[in-house]
């Protein structure tokens, strides 16, 4: 694998099966809602992260060869697809951080961030400015707002904690214990 880029050519059904099992196991940790495994979103996220991970090994012909595999997701984005894609996308922040460590001026990084920031729920750990994300969907959907705010608190992202909708969620949910529980 070192030295040359290995694209995924065949769609691997076992990967989808595995992701489906993971999805069902992790669903019980989320607040109750009606979500279903979104095969397309999960598989897109898996291949995207797979390709990104190779960037750390393979530094030649990056923009020409790999860039064509790094595509935006073109399906519908909703509760189900956000959670399904997060199964793999949650590892994207770590990969981007490593790439920044290797070369912070690498043009591929901004490309990855553009694609990644369409998935704010997965990208919380490396969000530095609140205007990086389009949070419209999360502010409108009470369920998404809850899981988003919970993850913001988990990573203690102080920038996102100050977004009015999220701050209001903390006030409503935690009341007088807000400062104690958000430490």
């Amino acid at each position, binding site marked *: 694998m070192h030295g040359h880029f290995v694209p995924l050519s065949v769609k691997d059904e076992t990967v989808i099966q595995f992701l489906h099992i993971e999805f069902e196991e992790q669903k*019980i*940790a*989320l*607040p*109750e809602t009606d979500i279903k495994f979104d095969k397309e979103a999960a598989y897109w996220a898996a291949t995207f992260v797979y390709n990104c991970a190779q960037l750390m090994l393979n530094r030649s012909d990056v923009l020409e060869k790999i860039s064509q595999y790094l595509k935006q997701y073109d399906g519908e984005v909703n509760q189900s697809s956000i959670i399904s894609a997060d199964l793999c996308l949650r590892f994207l922040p770590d990969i981007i951080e490593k790439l920044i460590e290797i070369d912070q001026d690498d043009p591929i990084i901004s490309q990855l961030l553009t694609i990644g920031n369409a998935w704010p729920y997965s990208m919380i750990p490396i969000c530095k400015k609140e205007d990086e994300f389009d949070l419209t969907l999360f502010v409108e959907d009470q369920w998404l707002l*809850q899981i988003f*705010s*919970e993850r913001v*608190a*988990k990573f203690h992202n102080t920038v996102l904690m100050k977004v009015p909708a999220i701050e209001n969620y*903390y006030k409503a*949910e*935690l009341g007088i*214990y807000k400062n*104690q*529980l*958000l430490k």
Partner: protein
Amino acid sequence: MGSNIEIHIDYLARLKSSDIDHLASVYNWEHLSLSDEGGYLWIKGLTEQEINSIEIKSIPSIEQFFTKKGKLFPLGKLLPTGNVPACLWTPIKRAIFLELPKKNHNFFEMEPSIDINIVPAEQTKQAVGHLIDWDLFVAYIKTASTLRLQPLLWTVLDGNAFVVGNPLLPLPGKTFWKHQSFLFPSGFDLELSSLTSAIQQKINPENEWDILWNVDSTYAYISKQSYEKLTRSSVALTVQSLSHQNEQS
């Protein structure tokens, strides 16, 4: 010249030998001497103030005297009734021996056992335990924020959920406060709360349990290992395994 001679007056007192126990009140007047003469006890060395004191006057068979020129006068009388007794004087501390009361080893002035009771307490303490109806608990957890759950531990207790920690969940239920390993209903305490450690030593010597007290003074053991971190998934898995058990049985 005769007016310069100071006439020395001594004061004496006499009581029956059988009343010797009443001398306890003057036992510490160390300048006194005692003498036993013909069924009477003589006391010598009293001052004028002492012979009129309540300690001497309160002795039942006491007779007070003063002596002048070897004659013995009853106190307040002008005619002598006899001569000063010539006898052997002993300091009071040597004349009377103290006897300490004997110990009765079978007498403790209390019952050999005590009843342990739970009574309304004078102070309220912060609640750290919460017994919640199972269905209510599960319904709440399904949509609850993890931020509320993360500082808490929980276990299943007799078909109810028992949550420990702070701050507790905003649900109805019985609350408990903790003293050592004892969980008391809020507003209640042991009647003999200073015996908490002793009672704990008795029923929970290894400190491996939490003891949940009821208002009717009964208690239940909760294993400290049975607590789980309170998360949505741990509750969901418990619900699953409980419904699985019900299907089998």
